[in-house]
């Protein structure tokens, strides 16, 4: 039986994340969260593999408890069960500490294949996949567009600008799914009902995991963010011409010449 673990992150639902200009930290308040959209593609790939070859898909997230709604969403898509990894002790983690906890969780779950998203929309480091693979010492391929099983090996493809690469991986392995390649399926009534009625979500704290305090949370996070700078908005003149389109065209051309953007 193929045991697939898929990692999802619960992120603020916005592409333009607000940063507190004073403290340089992310302002998360008031913004409803969603499952990182690229992770839904990872879920889709995991589900397709399971549907094709049989097995079991477990979703995991390290998050505050509100991420339960995100786990319910992917359970609604058809994921078999889920683990919410949540403990104040994990707060303030950088990618290293995050990946350490995730690796330990995955180890505890048992796995043949781990599927992650390409990156998150709120931090976009794309570190976590590589780091988890390193902790577990397993092969890792990033930017995967296709995956299938053949003779117990995973055949994955990645499409780069003008080449297509194919890899054969020994399992267990970790792959990150290239974004915008798969269309995540809709949630199904029966799956959503199961998510509500049979509580397939377990919550693990550090009591279950028993990880060294020095390796988790703020303490286990060596990354120091030295500075965050806001990129100032380019000032726009916002001139609007109203009236006849012919005149508007002429006005526009004159303006562009005036600004030295057009040469005659």
């Amino acid at each position, binding site marked *: 039986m193929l045991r697939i673990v898929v990692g999802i992150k619960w992120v603020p639902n916005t592409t333009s994340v607000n940063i507190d200009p004073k403290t340089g930290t992310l302002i998360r308040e008031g913004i409803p969260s969603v499952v990182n959209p690229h992770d839904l593609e990872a879920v889709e790939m995991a589900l397709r593999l399971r549907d094709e070859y049989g097995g079991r898909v477990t979703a995991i997230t390290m998050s505050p408890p509100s991420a339960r709604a995100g786990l319910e969403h992917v359970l609604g898509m058809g994921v078999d069960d889920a683990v919410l990894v949540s403990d104040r002790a994990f707060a303030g983690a950088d990618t290293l500490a995050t990946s350490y906890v995730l690796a330990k969780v995955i180890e505890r779950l048992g796995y043949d294949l781990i599927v992650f998203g390409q990156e998150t929309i709120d931090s976009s480091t794309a570190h976590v996949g590589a780091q988890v693979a390193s902790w577990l010492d397993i092969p890792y391929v990033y930017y995967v567009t296709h995956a299938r099983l053949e003779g117990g090996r995973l055949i994955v493809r990645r499409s780069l600008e003008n080449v297509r690469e194919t890899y054969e991986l020994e399992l267990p392995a970790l792959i990150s799914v290239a974004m915008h390649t798969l269309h995540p399926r*809709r*949630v*199904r*009534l*029966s799956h959503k*009902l199961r998510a*509500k*009625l049979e509580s397939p979500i377990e919550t693990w704290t550090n009591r279950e995991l028993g990880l060294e305090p020095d390796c988790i949370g703020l303490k286990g996070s060596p990354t120091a963010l030295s500075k965050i700078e806001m990129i100032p908005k380019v000032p726009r003149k916002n001139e609007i011409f109203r009236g006849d389109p012919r005149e508007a065209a002429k006005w526009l051309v004159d303006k562009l010449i005036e600004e030295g953007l057009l040469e005659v």
Partner: protein
Amino acid sequence: MKEVGYKFDVIVVGAGPAGSAAAYTLAKKGFKVLLVERGRVPGSKNVFGGRVYADPVGEVFDGLDGAPIHRWVTRERISLVSGGEMSSFEFRGSKRTSFTTYLTELAGWMARKVEEAGGVVLTEITVDGLVVEGGRVTGIRVGDERLTSDVVIDAEGINRLLLERAGLVPKLSVRHTGLGVKEVIKLQRDRLEDLFGLEGDEGMAWLMLGDVTDGLPGGAFLYTNRDSVSLGLVIALGDAVKEVGRHVSRYVEALRLHPLLRRYLRDGRIMEYSAHLVPEYTWPDLPHLLYTDGLLVAGDAAGLLLNLGYNFRGVDFAAYSGYLAARAVERAHEMGGMTSENLAIYRDLLEESFVLRQLRKFRRAPRMRENRRLYGAYPGLVNAIMDQLFNSPYETPKVMEALRRAREGRIGWLEMVRDLLEMVRSV
């Protein structure tokens, strides 16, 4: 179609005020209830102006503890606008009868009450159809799956596609609908209180008639929330649909930039824009459906909403009708099943309640509101009178004299008397 392996006593479609009220009432009584909502969270698909009458909602939900009450409406302002002029009438009351809120928050609160009472709330699920077998509604269809229940309560809102698809009601016509458009504009809390003369949790409901809708039948509204205002308008589509020359969003924009309003909103930040249909003609003018074998219809979906032009009673009417639908289910259960005969008690309960009594009483209101003079001639007339009374330094006219002069070229006496009579009879 695949049968889903769970069974519920009751499936409620739509987690608006009607659906949540029904689900809450039944869950509390021990029925196995499923509430299905297509939005990501309950309330995410709702749009409304914003004021809610507290008592009916409190009665249905056993109090308003924890409800997202922004401000209690203690000031009612009605303004007639023509050109750059406006005459206002303001009532400053002392009672706390209705409050402003965001329906998104209120619907969230209601759905939480459902869960607390033991109901199951499923979001992100769009019901595609009612399952009808031998003339009896036996469940819902979602994609290629079906789920069975003893009874379905349809609380899908004004655009009642499920009922249309099942052939149970005719298509909604534009004649019967209005269009509501709204912006939420954030203001500093103390600035807002200064601007509108509010203290503490006092709030204002402000209704405007006249030029604010370009003379189209309808009205504009402004409600003060905690630290924002809901600004919008409702336009009756009816005949006007041909005249709606601009994209509807432009109408709210024009409203926000209106010389008489922009002074309030200058420092505001637009948080949200939304548009939604509003039933203009409601029960009993429309061929609405209240119940059939295995089905009850509540809230906007049944046309149970009162639009008086100067006041909008949707949320409390919807919640109360959902509550009565739940009580009908309870009674039908005692009587042995969800047949049409047993569920007919729903109609009796509605008839006895303020819901249908009020709708009957005001059944002429929609027709009255079609009178275009309410939006053009009369605001102009009133402002012209006020102008003469206050802006005549030497020859102040008597009121009747001012009226006569203002009337000329605007409206005939006979028309005026007829309109007045109609108004008295309607509202």
